[in-house]
Structure formats: structure tokens, C-alpha cells
């Protein structure tokens, strides 16, 4: 076997080198890029090589058990012959691969998936034309082929692994980050497509296929109607994984995205019910009217039950997150575990697990986000994205591998009929349903929209897994179904997935605008909501704005109080949005090098002065400090204010934030506020921002460290945290002294010269008290304080509750 593998590697290397030369010929650039590619390719080869024997083992369990037996036997032998057992030397290095085989293989597969993902983004040209999902399937096919070449059976995507481990992360990611507003606004349309559309597709495809089978006679003639219907119901469901994979790359506008994606999520209930129904019937063999009726009831139970289970877990998660303020580290875990439990609980009763996950994510999100710290939020976001993208990659690779592995029964008539019927049913369904839907929609769906919706109906791994689950005793044509479904999946993913991007460009379908939501838009969205509610109320018309308003009120009044801890439960949406925006800017500010540059969201060229009604001119008549000098001073002050608190943090395994009532969120807000105040105070300067200065010279950086006023100002609560105390203008850093001195010389306030930190602290506390009062009266003094001593304002802000 080893010989075989080496041969194989040799062959692959050969092919690879051939490819490589081709590649270089085409691209004509020998650069780092190229080297990177080469290394990834070699890595990939090594991986494949290592996977070969593993895949073989995985797929042939009898080998493993056989070995186990042998070993067992030996073990027994050992114990029985203990008497004449001679002592061997203690094994310094032993080999026990079997022990780690399963996790090792899993890790290798995941590594392979991640490397593939990495590889595609290193080759920009390919990923521009071909969607990632197609490439992944091709990789899967190649690997499957290699494994087969070695003479082993490639592993097949087992339904259990798929439904329990690969699918949930993707769906949770989708549910948690579901854009609620467009989703609820288009819920009617989505439901129509998901329920009626899928039903139509299932029965049309199923019925027509049965007809085709009957016409063909002979071989296909034995296929029963029920099997056809079952196959139809499975093949008609649009697959969320495939849709996500393709639609995320083409950046289509929000409406179309949510329509197709929402449909793919919600049609799960229909598929589950139809699947179980037909599976049941075909083992029994007869259908009565009651069965049909029960089927309809079952649909309601499955979908609503799934939503209920999900919502319950969602509320539980929200409630739990209310109390996590002292153990921030496990916050993200609650989100994941509760959602997974929701999925599993729904599966226990054969409810729609997908619906449960979506409901759970959507319900918990607003409350959880208000409760948890910002870091936890980031963690959740990245974990979900990471898991879902790895799952997604694995699913497509396995789809490719399974194609090679599975037993196939290629029947031209059946396969072609399936593909054609799928297309026809989809197009007819979309056109027919839009006729009805457009009667009720305010924004009508245009012909282009209909085309994209019809064309975006991609099929994927869920259908494959469902067919794979079928019992071969009841469905004699399982292999043929499997072949047909794989063909349909490949057709939709390859042909439709690859052509949809050029088609979108060709039809000039509106694309998604990649802009941040501005505060003005938020204000006006809210304003419009209230306006429309008001107008409806004036007409005495209880439209959906009215009910939405009622629901919001209820949410605000009761639900938020129960599920959100502390002050934030009373925070109106607009304020929450504002804080979030402020916070984002603060982060960007910190990331962009200590606040020397204001982020783009905050207008960088217009200052408060420009929009505020004109102040009396006396404020302008302040003694001028030279521009350059001033910039320098401000920069020093600002960076100090921001960096210190970060430095105060100590690392602890169990707590991310040392001080419980002060999370990162607060930190940043304080910093931002401080900055703003600094700006306001220095009225000499009319810009809110300074143009980005060149990176700090070492001198200034050291000076910054040295003149660190915050090191002394530690609140009593944070007293037990190990802190880095920095000596002010210590003799060890002569340069810093000179810089500090220099700027003091230039400022006219000479008295405070030698007490930049400690001494000023006392005055600052006094100054703090009449800070608000003196604001306008004494610009002169304010200016002085700003220039000479950043401490007071900073300290001042710190004690002030910033969430009103």
C-alpha cells in the first residue's frame, strides 16, 4: 500500500508541476504571490498524501475492527502467559496511531478545508469567475478520485455528521445575523415562496416525474408515485447553504437576498413534513383523507413548534445573559449552547430544527447584545463566522468526495427529466406566485427580480443528505435518486452559480450598497415609523404599522425589563444606535494609532464650530499658540489619555475585564468623550480633528510614556490591579524631559511647569466641580488648563455616568 501511495504522490506531483508551469506561463509573474501559491500547493499535496490512508481507514471500518481484534487477542495472550513474561525495556518511543485516529482525521479534514479556503483567496482571478462552492466541489472530486486511485473507499458525507455538526453553525450564523427589518417587512412574500412555492414544486416535479417514468416504461416503470413525490419534495427545496455561498459573493440587493435566502430557510418545515409523510406512506402503502389532513396539521406543528422551541431557548439565553456580567468569558458559550440545544430539542420531536435555530438566534440577539460585553459580542461574531465558513467548506468538499464514493445508477431519462422539471417548476412557480403576491405588495417585484429569484433557487447538500438517509428496502431506486440529486446539485451550483454573477451584471440588477448606516438615516427611519403610525391612527386604520408600534411598546415596557440588566433596558433604540456608532468610531480611533486621526464616519473636515450658532467673538480672541506646537501638544495629550487605561489591564484566565462595572465598551466611550471634550475645550483650534501626523518619533513616544497623568488616577475599585506606573519625566529619559519642557516654555502658563501630573491632580478636582458652570465664562482659563494639564477633564469624564 505504501508503494501505492508513493506512486500516487509521485503522479500528483507530476501533475502539479505540469499545472504549475502552465500557471506561470499564463500569469507571468514571479513574485511572493507565486511562491505563496507554490507553498500552499505543496502543503495541499502533503495533506492529500496524508489523507489517503486515513480516508481509506475511515471508510473501511472492518479493517480497524479486525486490527482491534488481533490486538485484543494478543492482549489476552499476554495476560494468560504472564508467568513466563520476560521484562522488556521501557518503550521510550511508542507508536499508537489508532488511539488518536478519529480526532486526527477530523483535524486534518478541517485543516484541508481551511487551506483550500486560503488557497482560493490567493488566486484572485479564479475566485472572480468561479464561486467558491464550485471549486470546493472540484477539490472534493479530486480528493475522492485520489482516494479511489489508491484503492480505498472514499468516505461519504454521513447524514448524521451533516445534520448534527455541519449544518447547525451555518444556520445559527444566518439566524443570529438575520437582518430583521427586511425579513419582517417581506415575511408575507417569503412565506408564500417557502410554503406554497415549495409545495407546488414538490407536487409538480413529483407528479411529472412519475409521468415520465410511466412513459418510459420498462426500467423506470416500476417506480411508484410515492417515491416520485418524495423525491420531488426533497429536490424542490432551495438550500440555504448553497444560496448563502453564492449570494454572498454576488452582493445582490437586500430585497432579493432576503427573499431567496428567507425562502431557503423557511421551506425547511415543508420539506421535513413532506419527507416524513411520504416516507411513512410508502412503507405503509396507502393514503387516506385523514392522512392528508394530518399532514397539514403536522406541517403547522412542525413549523410553529420549531419556532416555539427556538423562541423559548432564545428567551432563556437572553435571561441567562442578564447575569453574566461577572463572568464575561463564558458569555459567548451561552449563545452557542442554547442555540444548539434548541436545534437538538426540535430534532427530538422531529420539529424543524432549522426554524428553531433561526427563531432562537433572532429572539435572543437584541437582548443578548444589550447584556454582554463588546468583546463577547466580537467573539460571538467571529466564532459564528469561522464555524459556518469551515462547515460550509467541508460540506462542499464532502459533496465532491461523496460523489466519487457513492453507488451510482445513471439513467439518462430520469436525470434529464429531473433537471428540466426542476427548472420549469421553479420558473412557473415564481411567475405564478409573483402574480398573486404583487397584488398585495407595495413594492412590486419586477421581471428582473423574478428572474433572479427563480435563477437563485440553488439545491444543495440538505437534499443529498435526505436522499442518502432513505431506506433501501422501501426505495429500490435509491441509487438512481442519489445520482439524480447529485446531478441537480451540480447543475445548480455549477451552471447557475457560475452564470448568476454575469447575469446580474448584464441585467443591471440593483446591487447592495456597502455603506454604513448613518445617524441621519437612523433618525429618519425612526421618524418615519412614528409618522406612519401616527397617520394610520388618524385615519383610524389599524394597519401593520399600528400593530408594530403596539408590539414595540410591549417589548419596551415588559420584555426588555425582564431580559436586560440595568440601565440599558430603558435605552431607546436611537440612543442605543448612537452609542454603538460612537463606540465604533472610538475603536477605529484607537486602532488608527492612538487617535491621531479621526475615523471616516466622523466628518473629518467639519468641526462643531461650523454648525454651532456663532458664539461671541471674544472666544476667538484668545492668545494664539503656533499651530504646529499646538498639534504636537494635543497629540501628546490625547494619546496619553487613551493608552493608559489599556495598560492597566492585567491578564486573568477567568475574567476578561478586571473591573466588573467597567467593560471595554465604557472604556472606549470614555475615551471618545474625553477626546471630544478636549476638542471643545481648546477653542483655539477649530477643527474637530487634526490632519494625520506622521508616526511618532521615538522622542515623542517616550515623552508620552513619561507624562502619563493617568497612571496616578486609579479609581479605588481598580486598586488591586497590577498597574504599570511610569515615572513622570524621570531622569532616565532625558529626551522626554526636553520635549515636555519645550512645550511648556511655549505655553504661557509657567507656574504649573514642574507639576504635570501629581500636583495638578489636586487642582483638577477643584476645577472639576465648576467645570460645567465656567464653561462659557472663562475661555481663557479653560484654554490654559487644556494646554497644560489633560488630567482634570479626563478624570472628570470618568466619574460621570455616560449612560443617562
Amino acid at each position: 500500500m505504501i508503494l501505492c501511495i508513493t506512486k500516487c504522490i509521485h503522479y500528483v506531483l507530476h501533475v502539479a508541476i505540469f499545472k504549475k508551469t502552465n500557471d506561470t506561463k499564463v500569469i507571468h509573474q514571479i513574485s511572493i504571490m507565486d511562491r505563496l501559491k507554490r507553498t500552499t500547493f505543496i502543503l495541499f499535496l502533503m495533506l492529500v498524501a496524508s489523507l489517503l490512508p486515513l480516508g481509506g481507514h475511515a471508510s473501511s471500518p472492518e479493517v480497524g475492527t479486525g486490527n482491534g481484534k488481533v490486538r485484543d487477542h494478543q492482549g489476552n495472550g499476554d495476560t494468560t502467559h504472564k508467568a513466563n513474561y520476560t521484562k522488556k525495556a521501557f518503550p521510550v518511543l511508542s507508536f499508537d496511531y489508532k488511539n488518536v485516529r478519529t480526532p486526527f482525521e477530523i483535524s486534518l479534514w478541517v485543516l484541508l478545508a481551511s487551506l483550500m479556503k486560503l488557497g482560493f483567496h490567493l488566486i484572485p482571478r479564479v475566485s472572480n469567475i468561479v464561486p467558491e462552492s464550485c471549486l470546493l466541489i472540484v477539490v472534493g472530486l479530486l480528493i475522492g478520485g485520489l482516494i479511489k486511485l489508491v484503492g480505498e473507499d472514499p468516505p461519504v458525507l454521513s447524514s448524521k455528521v451533516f445534520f448534527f455538526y455541519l449544518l447547525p453553525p451555518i444556520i445559527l450564523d444566518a439566524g443570529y445575523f438575520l437582518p430583521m427589518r427586511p425579513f419582517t417587512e417581506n415575511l408575507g412574500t417569503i412565506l408564500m415562496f417557502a410554503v406554497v412555492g415549495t409545495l407546488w414544486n414538490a407536487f409538480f416535479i413529483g407528479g411529472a416525474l412519475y409521468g415520465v417514468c410511466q412513459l418510459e416504461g420498462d426500467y423506470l416503470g416500476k417506480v411508484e408515485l410515492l417515491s416520485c413525490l418524495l423525491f420531488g419534495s426533497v429536490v424542490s427545496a432551495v438550500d440555504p447553504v448553497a444560496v448563502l455561498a453564492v449570494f454572498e459573493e454576488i452582493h445582490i440587493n437586500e430585497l432579493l437576498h432576503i427573499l431567496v435566502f428567507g425562502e431557503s430557510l423557511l421551506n425547511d418545515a415543508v420539506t421535513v413534513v413532506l419527507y416524513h409523510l411520504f416516507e411513512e406512506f410508502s412503507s405503509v402503502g396507502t393514503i387516506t383523507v385523514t392522512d392528508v389532513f394530518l399532514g397539514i396539521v403536522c406541517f403547522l406543528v412542525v413549523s410553529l413548534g420549531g419556532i416555539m422551541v427556538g423562541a423559548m431557548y432564545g428567551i432563556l439565553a437572553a435571561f441567562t445573559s442578564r447575569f453574566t456580567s461577572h463572568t464575561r468569558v463564558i458569555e459567548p458559550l451561552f449563545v452557542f449552547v442554547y442555540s444548539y440545544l434548541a436545534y437538538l430539542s426540535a430534532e427530538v420531536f422531529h420539529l424543524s430544527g432549522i426554524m428553531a435555530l433561526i427563531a432562537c438566534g433572532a429572539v435572543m440577539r437584541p437582548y443578548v447584545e444589550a447584556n454582554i460585553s463588546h468583546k463577547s459580542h466580537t467573539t460571538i461574531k467571529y466564532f459564528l463566522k469561522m464555524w459556518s465558513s469551515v462547515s460550509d467548506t467541508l460540506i462542499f468538499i464532502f459533496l465532491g468526495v461523496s460523489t466519487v464514493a457513492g453507488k451510482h445508477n445513471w439513467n439518462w431519462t430520469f436525470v434529464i427529466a429531473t433537471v428540466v422539471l426542476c427548472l420549469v417548476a421553479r420558473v412557473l412557480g415564481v411567475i405564478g406566485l409573483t402574480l398573486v403576491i404583487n397584488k398585495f405588495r407595495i413594492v412590486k417585484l419586477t421581471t428582473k427580480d423574478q428572474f433572479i429569484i427563480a435563477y437563485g433557487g440553488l439545491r444543495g447538500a440538505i437534499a443529498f443528505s435526505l436522499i442518502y438517509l432513505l431506506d433501501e428496502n422501501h426505495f429500490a431506486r435509491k441509487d438512481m435518486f442519489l445520482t439524480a440529486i447529485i446531478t441537480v446539485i451540480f447543475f445548480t451550483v455549477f451552471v447557475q452559480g457560475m452564470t448568476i454573477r454575469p447575469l446580474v451584471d448584464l441585467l443591471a440588477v440593483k446591487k447592495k450598497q456597502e455603506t454604513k448606516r448613518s445617524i441621519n438615516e437612523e433618525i429618519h427611519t425612526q421618524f418615519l415609523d412614528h409618522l406612519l403610525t401616527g397617520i394610520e391612527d388618524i385615519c383610524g386604520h389599524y394597519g401593520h404599522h399600528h400593530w408594530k408600534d403596539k408590539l414595540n411598546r410591549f417589548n419596551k415596557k415588559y420584555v426588555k425589563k425582564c431580559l436586560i440588566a440595568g440601565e440599558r433596558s430603558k435605552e431607546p433604540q436611537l440612543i442605543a444606535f448612537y452609542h454603538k456608532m460612537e463606540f465604533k468610531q472610538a475603536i477605529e480611533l484607537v486602532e488608527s494609532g492612538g487617535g491621531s486621526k479621526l475615523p471616516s464616519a466622523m466628518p473629518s473636515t467639519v468641526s462643531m464650530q461650523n454648525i454651532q450658532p456663532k458664539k461671541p467673538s471674544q472666544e476667538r480672541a484668545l492668545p494664539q499658540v503656533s499651530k504646529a506646537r499646538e498639534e504636537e501638544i494635543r497629540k501628546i495629550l490625547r494619546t496619553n489619555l487613551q493608552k493608559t487605561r489599556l495598560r492597566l489591564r492585567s491578564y486573568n484566565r477567568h475574567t476578561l475585564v478586571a473591573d466588573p462595572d467597567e467593560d471595554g465598551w465604557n472604556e472606549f466611550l470614555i475615551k471618545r468623550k474625553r477626546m471630544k471634550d478636549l476638542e471643545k475645550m481648546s477653542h483655539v483650534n477649530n477643527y474637530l480633528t487634526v490632519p494625520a501626523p506622521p508616526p511618532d518619533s521615538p522622542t515623542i513616544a517616550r515623552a508620552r510614556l513619561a507624562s502619563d497623568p493617568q497612571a496616578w488616577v486609579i479609581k479605588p475599585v481598580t486598586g488591586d490591579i497590577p498597574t504599570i506606573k511610569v515615572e513622570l519625566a524621570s531622569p532616565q529619559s532625558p529626551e522626554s524631559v526636553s520635549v515636555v519642557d519645550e512645550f511648556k516654555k511655549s505655553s504661557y502658563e509657567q507656574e504649573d511647569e514642574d507639576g504635570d501630573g501629581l500636583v495638578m491632580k489636586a487642582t483638577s478636582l477643584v476645577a472639576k466641580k465648576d467645570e460645567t458652570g465656567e464653561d462659557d465664562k472663562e475661555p481663557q482659563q479653560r484654554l490654559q488648563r487644556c494646554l497644560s494639564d489633560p488630567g482634570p477633564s479626563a478624570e472628570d469624564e470618568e466619574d460621570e455616568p455616560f449612560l443617562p
Partner: protein
Amino acid sequence: MRYARPNNAEELKATIRATWALITPEQCHRLIDSMPRRIAAVIQAKGAPTKRDDFNKVQDLKDNPIRSQIVEAFFDRRNFQKDGVGSMEEIGFEEFLTVMSYFRAPALHTTEEQREEIRRAKLRFLFNMHDTDNDGTITLEEYRHVVEELLSRSGSLGKETAKGIADAAMLEVASISVGHMAPDEFYEGITFEDFLKILKELEIETRMNIRFLNMDTTVLCK
């Protein structure tokens, strides 16, 4: 009763009597309860002049944070004529309908110009709601007022924040519409052109709609 087809007067009488007997005391109570709302609606529908007080009587409007602005919009002359100024004391049915027409849904087949037209009209309506002193710009003071009103139902906590939000929003507008400003320049306020610019992303023509057509009239008369 709708489905009864009486052949002669006697039968008609009988049907009416039967129907009359069907009206329950609960229905009567409901009728009485819904009087204020109905009165408001009826007054408007009859074409009798409607005053501000009539709007203030609308029960459901009580909790609306921007109630005063909504009511004011019904009396704003600018919404009725092109160069109207000031506000009216009372309005008739026609004016009421005119205001309502700002909330109609766009037709299915519209040309690009028509869409733009609708968009402008709707935004103009919004703009007028904000621009209370009719000087063609939304000044910082006016904008602050808007935000304060929006937050007015959320308790007393919002005053300072509202100011902050309005300031931030104004800064944003200034930076979008003017770009670079010298320190001593002064941004007067949001003009209508700026207003169009900042709400470009909002898709107002699809958002500012109310379904009047499939309005359930029975709700009104139950």
C-alpha cells in the same frame, strides 16, 4: 343582512327587525367606546373644517412621540400649494386628502422621472415637517428639536443625548454636503438639496407608504 334579498316591503321590514334584534349590547358599547376616533374620522370625511383640537382628540395618537409634528403637518400651507406660507387654522376634506396623498404607494409602472418626482414630493413633506420656521433650511436648533421629540417618550434621560445625537447628525450632514470647511465658515443648516443627498440610501419612495386601498372599513364602523 347583506345577503337577504327581500321581495316586498313586509319582508324587508322583517329582515330589518331581525337584524336590529341581532345587535347586541356589547356592540353598542363598542360603538360608544370608539366614538372619539369615529368622530375624528367622520368630521374629516364630512368635509367640515377640522381643527387642531380634533386631531389631539385622536386616542391612539396620544402615545406618539412626534404627535405635534404630525398634527402640524396637516395644517401646513406648504403641503397644499407650491409657495404657501404659514399654517392654517382649519382644514377641509380636500386638504386632508392632500396630506394623505403623500403616503400613497407608487404605481407599478413608473418611469425614472416619475419615481424621482414622487421621491422629491415625499421628502419635501418630511423636510417641511422639520423646517418649522420655513426658511428653507433645517437649522441645528430645529434638528435638535426633532431628535428631542423622537426621544420624548423615553423618559427624562434623553435630553443631553438627544443634543449629542443631533449634533453628530448635523456634523455628518455638513461633512457630506459641504466637504471641507474653513474654521470660520458657518454651516447654516440643511437645505433641501442636502436633505435629498443624505437620505439617498433610504429608499423613501418604498418606505413612506400606507396601504389605504385594502383598508378594512368595517373596523371603522364596528
